[in-house]
């Protein structure tokens, strides 16, 4: 399966980190680990900018996080217009990793506030789409 299946509407189909999708489908949050400098990367990356190594080792991380900020999109790109309004957020996970992700529509806007504890969960709503979503803890 190509990487265009990551997200609601993928733009990039070819990458070295395509194995990420199979982790998400197994309800795991994948990261890569640089074998040389031992640093973990999330979102996963295939190349270590520190020691310039090619990274091939995978691990999984905990989805507990705190919301850094969010918005509610009312005016969207054409292919997302039917989903409006929807939330997008940035959250910080354990270990300092940051993620940009949609926030579950089950939460009301008044409940969202920077600093709020949340959880990043893998989701595979259809066979063609797999990603992660910020939800209530």
């Amino acid at each position, binding site marked *: 399966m190509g*990487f265009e299946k*990551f*997200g*609601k*509407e*993928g*733009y*990039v189909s070819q*990458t070295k980190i395509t194995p990420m999708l199979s982790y998400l489908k197994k309800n795991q949050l994948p990261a890569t680990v640089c074998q040389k400098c031992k640093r973990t990367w999330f*979102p996963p990356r295939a190349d270590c900018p520190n020691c310039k190594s090619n990274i091939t080792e995978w691990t999984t991380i905990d989805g507990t996080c705190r919301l*850094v*900020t*969010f*918005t*509610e*999109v*009312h*005016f*969207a*790109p*054409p*292919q*997302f217009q039917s*989903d409006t*309004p*929807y939330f*997008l*957020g*940035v959250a910080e996970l354990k270990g300092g990793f*940051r*993620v*940009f*992700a*949609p926030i579950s529509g089950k939460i009301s*806007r008044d409940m969202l*506030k*920077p*600093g709020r504890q949340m959880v990043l969960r893998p989701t595979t709503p259809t066979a063609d789409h797999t*990603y992660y979503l910020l939800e209530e803890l």
Partner: protein
Amino acid sequence: MGKVAIIGVGHSKFGKRSDASLRELAFEAYRAALGDAEIESKTIDASLVCSATHYDKQRSPAGVINEYLGLNPKPTFNVEAACASSAVGLRTASALISSKLHDIVAVVGVQKMTELPNEEIQELMGRAGDVMWESPFGTTMPAYYAMYATAHMSRYGTTEEDMARVSVKNRAYGAKNPDAMFQKPILLEDVLNSRMVSYPLKLFDCCANADGAACLIVANGEKARKLSDSPVWVAGLGLASSPMSLAGRNGPLTSFEVSKKAARTAYAMARIRPEDVDVAEVHDSFSITEILNYEDLGFAKPGRGAKLLKDHETELGGKTPVNVDGGLIAKGHPVGATGASQIATLVHQIRGEAGKSQVDGAKVGLAQNIGGIGMYGCVTVLKA
């Protein structure tokens, strides 16, 4: 850097310019700049065409624009840094001149946006962020800036009304600028009642896509003194980058690190402090951006940007008048032209030719231009 000055500026009318093509818009600004500098094309050594080329139907637009301006076989190339393209164009021209490769360079900022069908432009805007990690979730330009607004509101208590004050101020100045897209002042309630685009930003918190061009004639010190009675000197140039992905950035997302870093560089090079700035042009792509810019440029302490507005300190007669030409919110934002438009305004201010929006005795001007969603930050200081 060697001495570099701006000896001529030109500006087209910004807005929905269904009467003119990309090359014709560029020509309007170029002709005006040559007239302002009182020189002919033969005096120009090279042109830098600055645009966010993904909006252009014409591929590699420098080719056709240089031809239309009648500048072949002189060197030309495109400079692209999204919304900061022509500010980076001025930086590039300064480097070319300082290195003595050229004596006089025309920086042509231009964009034609309203010709694109709405669907196409929305699709393009959707890819303004990191297409691998962020665009697949339905990002938009306003959504990115809205996230900074949410964070600033939460941390500092900034309100939607505070942000609306930016739009009201800038639209009032736009009404005095014949080149601005919007010529009508608006009220606080107009902003607050306009439709939601991306919470907390509403329609009148956002600048509009536009067509337009602005041109700068940039010269070395010797030529500038010979050709001009009132050269305006490029005193400080700052440029910095931030991760393009929002998740790649640190901190509470209540300020733009690119602006802070670029400002530090530009202030040091120009040997000035924030309080020495007589008039500023800042990147008000959204109302919240102007508030963040006050803080990032050192006009206000972190979290105190909104207070400057309440105290009228960024209006004419205030401590540091900001965007007295209407800013992006009133002028419209023809992406590639915006940076040069800001510089053109400062040149008029420093020469004392800004008419109804003149800041008395302006000698030091600052322009701050953010590229895209904050991955490029450009700060330029000009002096009399």
